């Protein structure tokens, strides 16, 4: 057990955490703005990976898949918001949660019909194969690329939310939708766009994860639970919380898989239980939502 090995595993944890951050961010953005938990989020992550597979098959290029699939699924998300979730505003917050749960069921089954039930391997693009020497050891180039993309998306989101007029409206809309409506902002359209962005980010996570995990209809289930753990640890609706918690979970999972592999899947849930005991609202959470 050398220092190098630990450092490498730490880096692997960052790549794992990066994908989790994508999913949890999408979940948090949608919750922060629309006040609903999207239980179809894991399924949309999976659908994103399949869309990537499909686009890559059509165009023969991973890069097009990375670009087109999230946009495709983001637009699909907008359809979901418009026709399934919008009729539920004003009802109990449990209703959108139940509806998206049913939707997840439908999406998984639909994918099974079109792509079969078996996992499909998604090959790493040729340009990103191989390893890089980081000075402390050799690290898979693709994982480095994933970390890079996630950092880029985070920067883009930060600039979009903090430095643009659209971001200002989004933040104001999440603070007080009624006042924004009074000021003449079309909140319904804003929610439509935000839901689309949230889903698109998750789909991007799905495409990024595809070469690291096999693409299968069930891949969303575990991710949904992981994303919940990350959002609960980070604090519901908090974007910095999602990032920090994603990294904590990713690193602790990969470190556990180095020292006690059989505990790897369990450690994040235990971590969540611990955080809940100390801070029921998560690290960056506001007062408990829902009531």
């Amino acid at each position, binding site marked *: 057990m050398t220092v190098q090995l630990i450092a490498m595993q730490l880096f692997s944890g960052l790549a794992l955490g990066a994908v989790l951050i994508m999913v949890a961010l999408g979940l948090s953005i949608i919750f922060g703005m629309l006040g609903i938990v999207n239980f179809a989020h894991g399924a949309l992550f999976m659908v994103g990976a399949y869309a990537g597979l499909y686009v890559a098959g059509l165009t023969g290029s991973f890069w097009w898949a990375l670009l087109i699939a999230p946009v495709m699924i983001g637009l699909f998300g907008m359809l979901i918001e418009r026709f399934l979730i919008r009729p539920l505003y004003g009802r109990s917050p449990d209703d959108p949660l139940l509806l998206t*749960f049913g*939707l997840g069921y439908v999406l998984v089954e639909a994918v099974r*019909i079109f792509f079969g039930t078996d996992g499909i391997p998604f090959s790493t693009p040729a340009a990103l194969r191989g390893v890089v020497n980081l000075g402390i050891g050799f690290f898979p180039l693709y994982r480095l690329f994933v970390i890079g993309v996630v950092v880029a998306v985070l920067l883009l989101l930060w600039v979009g939310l903090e430095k643009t007029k659209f971001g200002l409206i989004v933040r104001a809309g999440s603070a007080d939708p009624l006042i924004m409506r009074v000021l003449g902002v079309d909140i319904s359209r804003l929610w439509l766009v935000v839901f689309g962005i949230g889903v698109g980010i998750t789909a991007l996570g799905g495409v990024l994860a595809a070469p690291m995990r096999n693409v299968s209809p069930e891949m969303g289930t575990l991710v949904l*639970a992981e994303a919940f753990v990350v959002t*609960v640890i980070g604090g519901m609706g908090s974007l910095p919380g999602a990032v920090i918690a994603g990294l904590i979970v990713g690193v602790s999972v990969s470190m556990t898989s180095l020292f006690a592999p059989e505990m790897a899947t369990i450690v994040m849930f235990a971590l969540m*239980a611990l955080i809940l005991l100390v801070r029921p609202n998560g690290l960056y959470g506001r007062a408990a*939502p*829902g009531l």
Partner: protein
Amino acid sequence: MSVIRNAELVPAPARRSFATLFSNVSRWRVPLSILALCILPWVLPSQALAVNVLIYGLVAVGYNLLFGYTGLLSFGHAAFFGAGAYATGIAIGAFGVHWFIAMLIGVLISGLLATVMGVLAIRTRGIYFSMVTLALAQLVYYAALQASSWTGGENGLRGFTVSTLHLPGFSVNFLDPLVKYYAIMIVVAAALWFVSRVLNSPFGAVIEAIRENETRARACGYDVERTKLLSFILSGILCGLAGTLSAMHLSIVPLDSLHYHTSGLIVMMTLLGGAGSFFGPFIGALAFLSMEDIFSLWTSNWQLIVGVIFILFVLYLPKGIWGTLITWGKSR
């Protein structure tokens, strides 16, 4: 005066008959349920389906205590169902314990698990609660997957079969499907009676008060946290009891019984039938399992149809089959 009399006169016969019907149904709810359960295996296409309705009906009834009456949407109830099933199976298979003691152990373990999960989850509220219960149940799922020397891991628990129920004085052939159905039904009927008693007790009134307005219930001096926890534990115990019955019925415990899809199944059945009503969960279980039975003959992708039906229910009939019927009956 005459206006009032007219208003009374015209719709009165219909209103009175429906109102009496529903209050009678409500008063005799336990005997009526038992009567319905008694004829169930004779009207359903298969006895296997009837036993499933019994077991999942009980799960949904237990779940409904928390979701329908206390207003807490848990997505982790598979953990209690599975824990009850695994504990019973392990007690019989690995330790050769008498089936009755094994059932007690199953109920006890699921109650303990519900206490631990409840203490953690009750600290959170609303949507947060759903996420935390789901995540904690996943923890149980992965723990069972890892502890494969006890649980059989991915293959599920096997190697225990209850063929005869030995009771003081006589014994029952548990392999005869019809005998098995009625043996399980006795346990379910007792549980139904218990739930009915709980709902009619002051405790039942307090959990409904919490569902309607938590802040007000707290202001009235009720210990909201303790009541919620107690409701969580009771609900977990009932699901655990259904789990022990499922283990004895199937002689295996599939790992799937702990999976989050099972939790979702429980939520779907309860909502389909009508959350917050006494008959709702059983009707939901009956509707869901019958749909599965029929649609799985047509297509292997029957879950797609069930999912779509569930979405339509959330959109247009959030009160479920029985809840909508009650509302319709009262408005007549």
